[in-house]
């Protein structure tokens, strides 16, 4: 088990390195000169442009720039924003809790609604609940996030006045954005859980359990659900990653602070150090999440655990 985790850790580091190389190359190759973006093109003189380029190290060859950048990253120095000279890492760490809170609450909403509806719809197949669950699934998957967000604002803040339409002040302002993302996530989970429950229900061990005389409730909620959850956990793990990424849209719609907003603004302004910093940071989080998902398999499914041991 320890060895497996170590191997996974090593590959994870490779993934993080790969991600940083990729982002660096993309940003390097994109047309446009960051120096010209920083200075006003109407008033900057050629000397000013050249001085700034030297100051930022942009006059050096690609591999030296990359080596500097990666070395600094490893030391925890993510550089400074080109736009307002803010150090990048503190900026990410300051905004990350807001994004994490949003992701956490939307995951809870997605998982609760998703698993509940998924299980119920599989048990009551073709019934009213199944119909509703499939509708929720379809809605969640097909609605664009910003549209769902605006609908929720119109209903719950403009019409009913229950929740603030925007901001990041406390729990009440978290509800609508989290619900927006939660609905999307729930859509995926409902479909996944429903399908795998339907598969599991037809497996021989369920028949065996019935023959043993266990109550239908125990069979469904303890034995079938546990088996059906394995693929669902994979989806949920990926989903949390997606939710983290989805915060770009939701944070903009609801004017929340967070790393989604940071990267959206930085991309617009072509603020390279900030974009690279945020991507590097999110890559680490993705990798950690994946690791956790793999480990949780072992916990949920004894077969995986046994396979890991040998």
């Amino acid at each position, binding site marked *: 088990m320890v060895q497996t985790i170590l191997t996974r850790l090593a590959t994870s580091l490779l993934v993080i390195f790969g991600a940083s190389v990729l982002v660096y190359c993309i940003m390097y190759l994109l*047309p446009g000169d960051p120096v010209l973006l920083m200075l006003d093109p109407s008033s900057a003189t050629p000397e000013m442009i050249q001085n700034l380029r030297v100051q930022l190290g942009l006059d050096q060859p690609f591999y030296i720039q990359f080596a500097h950048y990666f070395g600094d990253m490893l030391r925890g120095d993510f550089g400074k924003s080109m736009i307002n000279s803010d150090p990048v890492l503190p900026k990410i760490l300051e905004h990350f809790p807001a994004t994490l809170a949003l992701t956490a609450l939307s995951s809870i909403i997605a998982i609760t609604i998703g698993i509940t509806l998924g299980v119920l719809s599989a048990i009551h197949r073709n019934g009213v609940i199944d119909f509703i669950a499939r509708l929720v699934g379809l809605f969640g998957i097909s609605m664009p996030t910003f549209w769902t967000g605006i609908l929720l604002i119109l209903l719950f803040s403009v019409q009913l006045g229950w929740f603030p339409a925007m901001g990041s002040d406390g729990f009440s302002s978290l509800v609508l954005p989290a619900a927006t993302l939660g609905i999307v996530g729930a859509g995926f989970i409902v479909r996944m859980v429903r399908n795998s429950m339907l598969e599991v229900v037809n497996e021989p061990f369920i028949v065996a359990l019935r023959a043993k005389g266990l109550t239908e409730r125990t069979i469904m909620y303890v034995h079938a659900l546990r088996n059906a959850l394995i693929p669902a956990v994979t989806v949920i793990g990926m989903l949390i990653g997606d939710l983290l990424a989805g915060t770009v849209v939701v944070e903009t*719609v609801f004017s929340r602070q967070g790393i989604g907003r940071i990267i959206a603004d930085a991309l617009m302004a072509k603020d390279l150090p900030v974009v690279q910093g945020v991507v590097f940071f999110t890559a680490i989080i993705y990798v950690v999440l994946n690791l956790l998902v793999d480990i949780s398999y072992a916990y949920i499914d004894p077969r995986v655990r046994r396979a890991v041991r040998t």
Partner: protein
Amino acid sequence: MNRSISWMKYMALAAGLVLVLSGCGAAGNSSSAVQASGGEQTGQAEGGNLTYALATSPDTLDPHRSGLAVTVRAIRTIYDNLVVQLPDGSIKPWLAKEWSVSADGKSYTFKLREDVKFHDGTPFNAEAVKFNLDRVIDPATKAANSLALIRPYTSSDVIDEYTIKVNLEQPSQAFLGNLSQALLGIVSPAAAKKYGDQLGKNPVGTGPYTFVKWDENADIVVAKNKDYNWAPETVENKGAPHIDTITFKIVPEEATRIGSVQSKQVLAAETVPPQNIAALKSDPNQQLLQANTVGLPYTLFFNLRKAPWDDVKVRQAVQSAVDVESIVKTLYLGNYERAWSALSPGILGYDASLEGSIHPDINKANQLLDEQGWVKGADGIREKDGQKLTLRYVDGSPNREKRNDIAAIIQQQLKQVGIAVEVEITKDIATVIYQNWDYDLYGNSQVNSDPNALFAFYHTSAEGERPTLSGLSDPKIDKLLEQGAVETDPDKRVDIYNHIQQYLIEQAVILPIYVFPYTVAASKSVEGIKFDSLGYPLFNDVRIQP
């Protein structure tokens, strides 16, 4: 059973985590404790917090380094200027009590107020003014738009503690008006030295409000400057503001911005989309404030350096083929005014006779293009010498004020006369427009107080200087622009600028599209939001009725 309990345990744990984290976020913001519905907190019309939703985030609160109009909404509250410009174009005292101009028009001597202090206690005097003006032209400041405004400033001499002589390279009729612009606001020299390039995060001025905090992407808070006693003529209240604080919330999504006014989460929100204007006007709890901005309207500039757009007939064909009236009516539902000239109404020298001067005329457009030898090919696109008649239309904003839609409509309209329009939308204007000159038509607008703004767009650019957007180079116009910059007789100035505007339309150098109104949706409880001569909001007189 064990399992379901552990499930619940994890859920509870996660829920707890959410609460803690969202609590953290709230704690960070609690200094803005005054909540959105500020009006309810006070019994009378003194005090309260005005929440004001901005459409985009300011880049920096250092006026000399900012390049964005949105910044002016916030920095107007923190900084004052030497002079103020009234809507009729006249210049009145502000931090300068009076001034005189030398006979050659190349130096201005300002007598300054003696009772002014910066928010950090630094005294305001001639040294401070000199520091500011020199700071703008210092390359180390990396000044942006303010640098263009301060030209042709060269140096200043401190005569005595409250008298300063400002020297120009050549006379400029625009100079005083430019000194009234917020981007030439006076910053505290002590703060500028202390914070360096971080002054934008720690702004210190002499304005009616003092800076409290700026949470990136969330809000900017300013508080009443109790000592304030030197407001300009544009506002009634010369002393400290009536309200305690203003919280500028940054809300980029327009539906959310309007939704937050309607749900009373904010008291006012700027830039109301045209489709929401009718609904807001009929809402008994809301008011709609509107001020046309002054300067250059949203204008499409032909790149005259590139064939075939160097040919006036081809440009005139486009001018006749584009139906500006229907574009503006369709997109803005009668809430934006159509622009007719290179200048917007309300600025000195605006030529109203151009209104109604151009009518869409497809036949004329076709005829002009036929005359120039552009023949329609099999695909309906005109050709000449094996070259297709294509127009590269570049737009630099993600549909700000529906500008991308203007491009799309023009594309359709020009197709009728056989011109293929390639639309490119890019944020990277610095490269596409200013570095590669890779456009045939590009739209821009500028807020400005003086018709001399035309100089930067139409005067032949000097060797090594940044070329103009239009690429126009006509000795006659150059001469007029040079005269306009220095002419002291207002009537003669008006004549000069009338000439220039007429020329630009007759020669089809530009297609003026719309005059941008700055719109604010506000709760009825908010009184006294005013606008300066450029259309920027002023908050000195604001009261919030309980």
